[in-house]
């Protein structure tokens, strides 16, 4: 028994020692941090960009037009209300002051002491168009108008005035106004003429105001009492006019519009647009025909100092007519005139080739230029011009430069040892591009340039000389790689901006005409092979 027990103890002790010694091998909290160095190949960007998208990215999306065929036209400059005529320019009604004075006689005193008495009415006639003898007002609806009555009486009486507008109605009812009673001293009243319609067909331009006075039976007024009232008729705003405005000419001052085609363009380079067009569109909601004459159309480049006036090149197209809308129409009349090289003797090329940043223009508008007709307008009517220039992206371009800036921030990347960036660009535009990507600090000082001292040259898609479009299925392709070691990446920590600049030329160094369409695409594949180094903490802390 003792021997057995002894053997058992010895065996147990050996096992105990064994297991305790191997315990150390499983203290995994003592595993040293591991250095992990994977090499990863990652696609970064796969995208295609059309010209339309590029313009949106640069903020120029309001400045182009794409037709149904996908042809792109630059809206080189564009402005509403290049010329504007409003109702206030067509008719101005002066104010009409008049007085009503009466001194009572003894006979009148006696009558009033026994009964009511009417003083003989007094009519006042006003010519609303006295400032312009050519104007004939047949009907006039007042938008805003008043008759201010300032009364100064020497007696009290319960009687009143009736101011009657003989050829006026309000809401179909003959319009008049009662002012009273008579009070000693000064008082005033205002008659609101808004929505009063004057029908002056029987006597154009003339309105008649009749002042009637009624005195009530009373012991006043007595002889020598006075009524001293002043009236002022004003119609500052006409709600609706019908009649004839006469033949008149409007000569607004010269105006200018600023060019806003590329928001971030650095310079336009040497640009030639095949068949640029300009158009002027008159929008007329005034019931009056007009004849428009272009008196000045001049472009200037404030940087180069060049200017070009093509007024005399417009020929017969410098003058055009704008009809009147019909009296029942609810929409204005539009009249557009297009100017192209064909009808301006190639002047459009001349105008745009100086790359103007301002265009000055001046026009003359003659209303009722020929025969007399029925004119009309309301308080919302107007006549204005839109000046629009369309530059089809069809031509040749040399050193057309675009630039855009992105905010950039990158922390120190301790884990990236190096990165090799690969780009594959498939260019479907008929434009060759020299690109550079810069990393700059806050003050735009260059910290790094992706391609070093070189540019990334992207060849254009080969162009069909007949259609001036890229050959179907053919592209300009460019593969490039950029290596960033640890030091170079550490420099980027100080960068605040990425600046992308591209200088574009059309085929043959900018000498061959090309057509840019909305469907043409530039495809970009951007990928990276990144070597990482990371310390992996293992075991328990």
């Amino acid at each position, binding site marked *: 028994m003792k021997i057995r027990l002894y053997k058992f103890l010895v065996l147990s002790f050996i096992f*105990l020692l064994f297991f305790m010694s191997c315990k150390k091998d499983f203290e995994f909290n003592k595993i040293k941090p591991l250095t992990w160095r994977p090499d990863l190949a990652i696609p970064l960007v796969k995208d295609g960009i059309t010209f339309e998208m590029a313009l949106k990215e640069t903020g120029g999306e309001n400045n182009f037009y794409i037709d149904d065929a996908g042809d792109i036209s630059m809206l080189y400059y564009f402005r509403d209300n290049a010329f504007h005529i409003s109702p206030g320019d067509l008719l101005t009604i002066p104010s009409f002051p008049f007085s009503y004075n009466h001194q009572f006689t003894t006979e009148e005193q006696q009558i009033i002491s026994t009964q009511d008495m009417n003083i003989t009415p007094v009519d006042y006639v006003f010519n609303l168009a006295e400032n312009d003898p050519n104007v004939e007002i047949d009907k006039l609806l007042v938008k805003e108008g008043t008759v201010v009555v300032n009364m100064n009486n020497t007696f009290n009486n319960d009687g009143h005035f009736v101011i009657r507008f003989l050829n006026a109605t309000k809401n179909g009812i003959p319009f008049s106004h009662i002012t009273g009673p008579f009070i000693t001293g000064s008082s005033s009243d205002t008659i609101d003429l808004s929505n009063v319609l004057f029908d002056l067909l029987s006597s154009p331009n003339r309105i008649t105001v009749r002042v009637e006075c009624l005195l009530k039976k009373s012991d006043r007024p007595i002889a020598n009492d006075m009524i001293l009232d002043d009236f002022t008729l004003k119609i500052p705003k006409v709600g609706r006019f019908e009649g004839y405005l006469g033949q008149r000419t409007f000569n607004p001052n010269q105006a200018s519009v600023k060019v806003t085609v590329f928001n971030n363009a650095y310079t336009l380079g040497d640009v030639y647009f095949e068949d640029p067009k300009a158009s002027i569109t008159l929008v007329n909601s005034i019931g009056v025909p007009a004849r428009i004459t272009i008196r000045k159309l001049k472009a200037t480049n404030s940087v180069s100092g060049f200017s070009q006036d093509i007024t005399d090149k417009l020929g017969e197209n410098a003058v055009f007519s704008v009809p009147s809308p019909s009296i029942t129409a609810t929409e204005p009349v539009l009249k557009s005139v297009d100017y192209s090289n064909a009808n301006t003797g190639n002047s459009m090329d001349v105008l745009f080739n100086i790359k103007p940043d301002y265009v000055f223009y001046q026009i003359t508008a003659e209303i009722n230029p020929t025969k007399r007709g029925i004119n009309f307008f309301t308080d919302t009517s107007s006549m204005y011009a839109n000046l629009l220039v369309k530059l089809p992206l069809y031509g040749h371009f040399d050193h057309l430069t675009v630039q855009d800036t992105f905010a950039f921030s990158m922390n120190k990347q301790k884990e990236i040892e190096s990165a090799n960036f690969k780009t594959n660009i498939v260019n479907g535009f008929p434009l060759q591009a020299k690109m550079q990507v810069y990393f700059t600090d806050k003050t735009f000082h260059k910290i790094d340039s992706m391609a070093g001292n070189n540019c990334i040259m992207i060849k254009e898609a080969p162009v069909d000389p007949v259609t001036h479009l890229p050959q179907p299925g053919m592209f300009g392709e460019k593969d490039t790689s950029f290596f960033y070691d640890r030091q170079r990446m550490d420099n980027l920590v100080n960068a605040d901006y990425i600046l992308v600049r591209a200088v574009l030329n059309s085929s043959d160094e900018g000498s061959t005409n090309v057509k840019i369409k909305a469907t043409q695409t530039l495809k970009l594949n951007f990928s990276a092979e990144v070597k990482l180094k990371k310390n992996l903490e293992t075991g328990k802390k």
Partner: protein
Amino acid sequence: MKKRIIVFPIVTMILLLATFRVFPQHDLTLYSMDKVPQRIYLNPSFIPEQKTYVGIPFLSGMHTTIANPFSYNNVLTREADDSLYFEAERFLDKISKNNHINLFTSFDFLSVGGKISKDRFFINFGIRERTSLNVYLPENLFYMLWYGNTTPQVYGKQVNISPALNASVYDEWSFTFSGYALKKKLTYGATVKYLSGRINVTTKKSTFDFYTDPDNYNILMRSDFEVQTSGINDIDSYLNQRVPSLIFPGNNGFAVDLGANYQINNHFSVNASVLDLGFINWRSRTMTLVSHEPGKEFTYNGMSMHEFADLFSDFSKFGTKVLDSLKHLIHIDSVYDVKYRSNLPARFNIGGSYSPDEKNHINILLNGISSAHHFYPALSVSYLFNWTRYLGLTVSYNLFNRQYTNFGGGISISAGPMQLYLVSDNLPGLIFYKGTNNTSFQFGINILLKGKAAKPEPKEPDTPVIPAPEETKQ
């Protein structure tokens, strides 16, 4: 004195448990140890020689077998300052194209058996918790994780990098009935088992094809997953369940073991068994992970110019953005309450024994495990020496897991009614564990009751020999 004899081994084993590390089952050596009652779990026809035995609860059978494609030394190196260093490159050199990690464990809660009906039959009852784990790890996954996707093993090639996991944890309630036939030449046995599943992961499909295009680094992926699980979904709260739900979670299964042993003559015998023919129906806390669009190819080829430009303001977020984009492409759906069935890894044994005498026995065993559509064969040749009835020693040579240096051994020591047994199919692996990629270890303590000496069977009376009549002389 007797109390000390009983108590001291128990205390020692507890101490051993405190230092014991379980590594991650062929059970080759134990198969030939005829003094260990737990052998009946390997062949129900192996009736113990003892009348009755009781495995000490929780201590009668702790068994672990683990097979790895790599060893400790392939992975870790101890340095002079006692720190450990992970040898990544050496590890990658060592692994093969397809790597399986297998782990089988069992833990006896209760094991008791005894002879009945005048020793004509043997019944055994046991409760065990068993775990099987099979992890498949493709070589390409390791290469890609360590070297990145530009490593030549992966770059420009379509590779499957998807691991697969099959695991089961279940309780086994077994009842064995064994008996004799053919004048005790034949021993037979059968075990029926009720299985109560706790946790399961069954991978039905696991494909994740990955391809990096060398021209533009585009990443093409295709996934086809279907992984059925039970008890995994909310494993954090697993132990918060009520006790009945923990013991009987509702995943019921059944299995049978069958075995037979035939004594050809006094020296030779043959035996065979098939184990764990069964299944478990998983119904409780199930969750199936399945690809949203199985087999569909997804390509990650970068982001738009606009998104890339947005990252300029904080370039440090770029890595997160790329990972999110990749993860977004792979949709895994979780489907709950789908019932499914998993089969147990069946085991097969065919063996033979030569016993020149009662003390010495030479055994040969062919073994195989069928698990997760793979078959793992093994061969064992062992020598058993029974020195008195107190000590049994076994040495074995075992071939499995593509290793040819597995020398196993086992010892059973009986001190009074107590028996301690220790077995390993790869003893050098246990001692020189750092250099081996597979090992097994099992030990336990039993109480053996031999019972009264059996009455000798009455001998048949000698038949008197009637001499042949002499020829009558004339």
